[in-house]
């Protein structure tokens, strides 16, 4: 069992054509200043970002866990509702030209006590249909969203997803 191992390789980060977050930099306080690449998700509109991911042969069928390191652009209170969904790109079967109804698994996470600190909630997928029956050796679109319209999403201001921290782990 490969519990906790990284089993997905992020090939690319792809903002959708519409409703995508602003890709920007969160500057650190050191000299020289650090620059963390972030996707800044709006507080008033649902926005999405996609990752093209390859599921490696080390995946043992235990389901997936997606950690989502994020920080608040300015807030120090409130909850952000993150969602993750998978579109399996099955070999000679899934047509990217077709439409996918993404089925999201969600997590509500309270922001860190300081806006420059990160919180790392996780979203889990059980093996099988919950992860669109994605199997090792295949690519998939992993779509992450901030469900800013949901009643549980109370945090005012942008939520910054730390892009360098994106991984796909076996549960």
């Amino acid at each position: 069992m490969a519990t906790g191992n990284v089993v997905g390789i992020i090939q690319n980060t792809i903002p959708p054509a519409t409703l995508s977050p602003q890709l920007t930099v969160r500057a650190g306080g050191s000299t020289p200043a650090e620059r963390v690449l972030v996707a800044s998700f709006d507080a008033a509109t649902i926005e999405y970002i996609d990752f093209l991911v390859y599921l490696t042969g080390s995946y043992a069928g235990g389901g997936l866990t997606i950690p989502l390191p994020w920080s608040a652009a300015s807030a120090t209170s409130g909850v952000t509702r993150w969602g993750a969904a998978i579109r399996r790109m099955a070999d000679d079967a899934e047509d990217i030209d077709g439409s996918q109804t993404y089925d999201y698994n969600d997590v509500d996470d309270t922001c860190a006590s300081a806006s420059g600190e990160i919180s790392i909630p996780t979203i889990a997928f059980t093996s099988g249909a919950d992860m669109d029956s994605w199997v090792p050796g295949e690519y998939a679109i992993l779509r992450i969203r901030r469900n800013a319209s949901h009643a549980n999403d109370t945090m005012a201001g942008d939520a910054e997803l730390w892009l360098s921290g994106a991984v796909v782990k076996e549960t």
Partner: protein
Amino acid sequence: MAVLPDADRIRVWRGLMRYRPFGGVAGVVKTDLRAAVNAADAWIDSNTASFVAALPDPFRTNSSQNQKLLLFVAVLLMRFGIDLLKQIFGEVD
């Protein structure tokens, strides 16, 4: 003058949340900010007559409602910071 339509109050609310220089307010979530926007708009509506009465003539009599609003906004923006005022009005020597 009436209070803003709800759709416009929502625009103000969204704009403030997207405006990074606005920053975060400790203990304040979306609904709290929305309530503050509503209260600010209601206060402006309630006190517009008082503001107009404070203006001297001939400006008070000869200016349009929009000109009175821009006057109010210009003074407020200067109180906030000259850079934002310049973004709206251009150079202010």
